[in-house]
């Protein structure tokens, strides 16, 4: 039997300082390895996998046995390509993580006794590899420092009232603290919601929209007619300023630069919506061939799964920055920075509504004061069309050295 072999290895190391009531309550160490093996023969794929150390020989044997399931995979393997990247060669030690955690918490306890902070301060290391017998050899290594503290105002009976977030390859505790001093002062300053029924709302990250667009850009759904975008290739969908990329640049995403089939995009990016026009959809090798679509390298799958186009694509999508000056755009008008807006959703036809649990009055540079809860409502076509304000590099809110963006839209406000 002429077997082709593919090996996937994921190693995750972590030191986490667990925080309760602004103090380190526990230290957690983690070192987990996951290995997956795929074998290919006569147009079929066999898979196996293990958590922990398992010999390649054993996994190969199990993957060969899995060939008998008869799962079709008649597509060429990615081959003859080597790319090893390490985005952070100096991960923090466990001792450093604890020292940073103690330093941050001491300042927060001292300066903000009216708040309590919980969750974690952590250092994460990730090593993802995919290699095959056809000469593919890809390695992504990275390490980052991660502060995720939920914030509780001691005077409220809420489960929590917000949070501090920091994700960075290089640590700058002083800058983190300086930014969050302003952030926490804004928390303390309670302000009223502006009376207008339509307001400019800015968000960091675009996970709700990306999730919706990820489903709409799914190549198979597109081809089968069930996507909102079916039949619209080449058509203008949104504002001319909107460009949406399939983004595999780890600098921005902290994720591997290759997909589950080992495909690397030129410059780690590929536009799907360009100047508002639909130019490509998300495909893996199978979807591209089956439906005669451009292959865009969007395969997903767990370490021990066959590659598939199904899966959550939202995290791999990124809007291109199209605007520069939030304050200038606002031109003195009050804006809202929506910090936590969870639980809402899009309907299938694109209507959107969500409660906004934590938000601030925002002048484009500075958070002025904390707003009461409200609900915002719109439609995908309006948010990225007539009500689209723009996508900006985030120079206002310091969340670490991983690049982030602010995106703004006029939204209907329901109090």
């Amino acid at each position, binding site marked *: 039997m002429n077997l082709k072999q593919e090996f996937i290895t994921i190693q995750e190391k972590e030191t986490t300082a*667990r925080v*309760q*009531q602004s103090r380190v*309550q*526990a*230290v*957690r*160490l*983690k*070192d*987990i390895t996951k290995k997956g093996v795929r074998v290919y023969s006569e147009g079929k794929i066999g*898979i*196996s996998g*293990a*958590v*922990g*150390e398992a010999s390649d020989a054993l996994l190969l044997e199990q993957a060969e046995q*899995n060939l008998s*399931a*008869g*799962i079709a995979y008649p597509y060429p393997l990615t081959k003859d390509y080597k790319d090893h990247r390490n985005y952070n060669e100096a991960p923090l030690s466990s001792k450093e993580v604890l020292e940073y955690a103690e330093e941050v918490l001491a300042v927060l306890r001292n300066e903000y006794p009216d708040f*309590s902070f919980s*969750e*974690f301060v952590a250092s994460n290391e990730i090593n993802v590899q995919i290699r095959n017998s056809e000469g593919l050899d890809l390695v992504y290594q990275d390490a980052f420092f991660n502060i995720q503290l*939920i914030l*509780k105002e*001691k*005077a*409220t*009976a809420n*489960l*929590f009232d917000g949070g501090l977030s920091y994700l960075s390859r290089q640590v700058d505790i002083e800058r983190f603290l300086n930014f969050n001093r302003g952030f926490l002062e804004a928390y303390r300053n309670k302000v009223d919601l502006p009376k207008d029924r339509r307001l400019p709302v800015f968000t960091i990250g675009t996970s709700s929209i990306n999730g919706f667009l990820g489903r709409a850009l799914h190549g*198979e*759904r597109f081809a*089968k*007619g*069930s*996507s909102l975008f*079916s039949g619209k290739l080449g058509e203008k969908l949104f504002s001319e300023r909107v460009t949406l990329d399939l983004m595999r640049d780890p600098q921005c995403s902290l994720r591997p630069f290759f997909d589950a089939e080992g495909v690397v995009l030129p410059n780690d990016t590929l536009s799907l919506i360009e100047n508002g026009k639909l130019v490509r959809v998300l495909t893996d090798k199978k979807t591209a061939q089956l439906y005669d679509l451009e292959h865009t390298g969007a395969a997903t799958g767990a370490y*021990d799964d*066959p590659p*598939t186009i*199904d899966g959550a694509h939202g995290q791999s999508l990124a809007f291109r920055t199209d605007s520069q000056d939030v304050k200038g755009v606002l031109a003195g008008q009050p804006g809202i920075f929506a910090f936590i807006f*969870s*639980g*809402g*959703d899009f*309907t*299938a*036809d694109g*209507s*959107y*509504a*969500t*409660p906004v*649990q934590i938000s601030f009055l925002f002048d484009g540079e500075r958070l002025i004061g904390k707003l009461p*809860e409200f*609900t915002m*409502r719109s439609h995908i076509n309006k948010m990225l069309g007539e009500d689209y304000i723009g996508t900006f590099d985030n120079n206002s809110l310091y969340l670490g050295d991983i690049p982030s963006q602010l995106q703004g839209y006029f939204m209907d406000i*329901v109090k």
Partner: protein
Amino acid sequence: MYSFPRDLYVDVRVEESFDTQIRFKQLDLQSQKVRKEKGAFIRVFDGQRWYYSSTTNTDDVQAQIDTLAAMANPNPEILSHPLVAAFEVNQETVLQYEKSSVTDVPIQEKQDLLHEIIRQIKDETIVNHSSYYVDNKTIKSFYSSKGAAITYDQQTCGIRVTLDVVAGENKDQVSISKGATSVSELRGYADYLQQEIAKSVAFVRYAQPVVPGEYAVLLSPEATGVFTHESFGHKSESDFMVGDETMRAEWALGKQVGRDLLNIIDDGTITGNGYVPFDDEGTRGRKTEIISGGLLTGRLHSTATSVALEEGLTGNARAVDFQFEPIVRMTTTYIDKGTRPLQDILAEMDQGIYLETLKHGSGMSTFTLAPARAYKIEGGKITDPVKISVVTGDVFSTLLEVDAVSEEFELTSFVGGGCGKMEQFPLPVGFGGPYTRVRKLQVQ
């Protein structure tokens, strides 16, 4: 078994899991895998701080214990520490799935079960469908330096079918799911899944946008379950209350939080997604009455929160898997059944919304329910399907708006998803309840 270091509290949780996953895209097999994992979570406590480690090298747990012990400060008084003194010491083996184990069912039978269900999907509006069968059996063992020695098993299996439906301009992706505790039980749900598929297709075909506003809302048992979990369940998790005087005052035991018809229970002894015969600290699972007759009567605890709040243990310290430490989580949480027939409750509603199935929910100060299938209620009858983005309410006041619960009652079970709390997701939980009427909720 393990050599526990002196003057420290140590516990070890070993999890050995067996998982099957079979996926189809239409009638083509996409993947078929069996995954066997073994891992351990080790905790060491010196009276001041916890030290945790998770490992997949279960042959070397002793080395992990020794490493963590070297980081800790030995404390000769550790056994009299209030937290350590409170840990239960159970010694028991409870293996209830030995005779109905998913590990004994040939994979071809599991594949055939799923194939038989999807083979019948023929509606012309279903342009594509994907589906999977999954099962999990986990055997957990727990040992502590106080002498606990527990072994028990948990088991679930289920089917999920996702349909791409196109009916003219109306198109949507909808999912149907059913969970069970054995393959033979799951076989009995084939007709149920077909009925759900038909309902979902009809919903996509005919649903129109809702007129946003405030409505009286009738919740199905499934929707009641998510409502209970999100609107109040998380509030009953007492780790949010420790050291927080405002929360303790707001949620003091004895406070009236609902009408006298309202009873909310969390019960780890019910088989299914929330089955926890012992929690991940070795505490025996039990039934906890959180709200009785509208009054707050209990809350959910780990050992640490139980000690801190001076309330009894409840067996609610759960970890999503061996990579995480136990934190306070729900098990199977439900509103208890009432005494009124559904038809009587419905007949009283001139105008409202019926939530039948949900995509997801969340619970902060505002809880949210994102419906999958929802319908208008007009003149005491459930009528036309409506598309709704989100239904919201205030966790502090909504329970007081519950004014009817039916005598019809169902605990639901599903696969795919689960409860998320901070970094630990998805944790299997059970839920359900009666048909429940809430006088007013915001519908968008």
